[in-house]
């Protein structure tokens, strides 16, 4: 065991997989010699050589297109899109190609690609370094979508993603790379070292895709969250005094509907939290899942706490970011209904 922050845990996952499987290659913009703008691939090129960890031209569509071809010839590419905001040029290769290749070729050709990309705001990134486009991918059949909330899960889930034989989009909430940010931007950030989930085995282990985790058991309401919002929700629960259960979804596709349904059917109240914009956000899907599975047990309308349907404004990040106060208000609202 070692103490790791998210960046170190992700680095360790790639390190482990590069060592275990010669077909794993890692590439992306600034990923090779320099080790990535967030340092997630630091030292990997030095350790594994230039043909296994390398820099790519600034062409996200080209990165995904070539990754697919490599996957077809038996490699297992792990590519980094420097910011999720820049994934759109690769959208066609992901949606029309990677996601559908197995199906359209009736299993004749497949490409096990993992796409890592930092998402989310709260870092003064403005509208082009802050987006959370996960719903744009959960809507695509054939892609798996994963978002970890802590170093232990980050490493275990990334290893699972790399080993998975289908394409996986792996979102990394960059605001929690260095510590479990709970939305209190005016307080100093607690580093991961103080958090139990920064205890990370140095060797190989996996956290399965498609399994949510109850991070705080509770009786009176259920909060569904992922990524940074897990920590924001925990803070909100503590501050509101509501005995709410907090579920970290970890993987959006496949989604652990069982864990969600079991919890909401028990508590009868549900708050859904995400940082992404509201309309057609993943919260809409979650809300539908809750309605379909828990309608007769619901004591209150499902509440959504989300980013607004606006670009992420540089000067008003904290008015945009769905912080603990907003989550706490939603909890009160479902309790009072």
């Amino acid at each position: 065991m070692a103490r790791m922050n998210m960046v170190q845990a992700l680095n360790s996952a790639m390190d482990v997989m590069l060592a275990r499987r010669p077909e794993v290659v890692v590439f992306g913009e600034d990923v090779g010699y320099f080790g990535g703008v967030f340092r997630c691939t630091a030292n990997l090129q030095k350790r594994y050589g230039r043909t296994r960890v390398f820099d790519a031209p600034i062409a996200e569509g080209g990165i995904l297109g070539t990754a697919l071809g490599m996957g077809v010839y038996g490699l297992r590419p792990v590519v980094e899109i420097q910011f999720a905001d820049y994934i759109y040029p690769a959208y066609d290769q992901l949606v029309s190609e990677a996601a559908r290749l197995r199906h359209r070729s009736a299993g004749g050709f497949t490409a096990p690609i993992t796409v890592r990309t930092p998402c989310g705001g709260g870092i003064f990134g403005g509208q082009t370094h802050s987006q959370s486009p996960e719903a744009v991918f959960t809507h695509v059949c054939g892609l798996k979508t994963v978002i970890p909330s802590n170093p232990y899960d980050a490493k275990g889930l990334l290893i699972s993603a790399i080993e998975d034989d289908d394409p996986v989009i792996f979102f990394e909430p960059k605001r929690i790379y260095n510590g479990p940010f709970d939305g209190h931007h005016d307080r100093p950030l607690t580093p991961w070292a103080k958090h139990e989930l920064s205890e990370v085995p140095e060797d190989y282990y996996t956290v399965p895709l498609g399994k949510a985790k109850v991070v705080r058991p509770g009786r009176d309401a259920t909060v569904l969250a992922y990524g940074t919002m897990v920590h924001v929700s925990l803070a909100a629960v503590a501050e509101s005094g509501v005995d709410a259960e907090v579920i970290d979804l970890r993987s959006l596709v496949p989604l652990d509907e069982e864990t969600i349904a079991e919890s909401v059917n028990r508590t009868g109240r549900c708050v859904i939290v995400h940082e992404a914009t509201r309309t057609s956000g993943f919260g809409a899907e979650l809300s539908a899942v809750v309605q379909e599975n828990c309608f007769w047990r619901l004591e209150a309308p499902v509440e959504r706490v989300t980013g607004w349907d606006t670009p992420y404004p540089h000067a008003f990040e904290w008015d945009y970011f769905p912080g603990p106060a907003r989550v706490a208000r939603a909890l009160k609202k479902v309790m009072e209904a």
Partner: protein
Amino acid sequence: MNKSPLQLHIPEPKARPGTPADFSGLRIPAAGATRRPPADANESEMRDMPYGLIRVLDEQGRAVGDWNPQLPPERLREGLRHMLLTRAFDERMVKQQRVGKTSFYIKCTGEEAVAVAQAYALEPSDMLFPAYRQQGLLIARGWSMVDMMCQVFNNTKDRLKGRQLPIMYSVPEVGFFSISGNLATQFPQAVGWAMASAYKNDTRIAAAWVGDGTTAEADFHHALVFATVYCAPVILNVVNNQWAISTFQGIAGGEHTTFAARAIGYGLPGLRVDGNDFLAVYAATRWAAERARRNLGATLIELYTYRAAAHSTSDDPTAYRPDDEWKKWPLGDPIERLKKHLIGIGEWSEPRHAALAQEAEEQVKAALKEAESYGTLGTPPDRPESMFDDVFKELPPHLQRQRARMREGN
């Protein structure tokens, strides 16, 4: 300072329906005129090549110049056979579409030399990333026409289980990558495949095809950038058949330069080839394959040809081009030209040609009979719930639930 009004330029082809076909502006070098650099020449010494036109067969059907690949007559007769088969296959399948046995078909009439000669110039183990107009690759690699027809018919033996539009073949057995409906996507994929081959220290190379219109896509640029950066062992082919549905190649940026010349900006060799000249297509592809195999990287090849038929069965070209334009194409027909050459060297005759064409017809007819016995459009290729298979390797819970609902009818 000049402040006269600016004018927006919209390229327009020389001829439209009702006006005579006009190819007067084409500069077509004589056969043998375009030089053949050594296959290991430095790219910087070959920047004239994209503006030439590699041609071996002259007007009399003689093979001339340094690019003559000196193929044995048996190989050329085999080439004729595969081109005739491809043409006969296309004719038959269009008829099947007309009578409603398939929803859709795409012919490659007039472009048969591209796929057949290029397939010959590659090793059978090399990987192909085709567009939808290279069915000749499958025929030249000896793949079953029955199997191809079953995909077109979406019948009980459709290997793609009714999931794909007709002609979007996928045949891993002969290294023929799954055709995508999204143009150009296969170009960077082929580069990635080739990079993987180099990564593995393998000896296989890749080849990919796009049309003239498709070169405008970003993926075309991605392919060339990645190919040059990583020196990928790949042959990138542009089949310039002059048309992209109804738009002429000027709309893709072909008015002032050649598509082969795109290579120059990337530091890649670019060859421009008479696409209706079987020998030239073979020789140029062979040259590029040799470079790739010697770890000298990628080549861009423009195959200069003409789309003699409609874009697809959904298209009527008389609405946008003179209806006899294809007959006026100055580079002729690839089958006729190879035939003339073989007759000229005393290795072929009109009666033998007629017999071979007849044989091709019969072969296609027999294949059709068998394919039809497995059903045509409307015959369910599988149970509908098979659509849930292969979305993922393993069926996740939400798809299990949806499949159950489909079975229950809600």
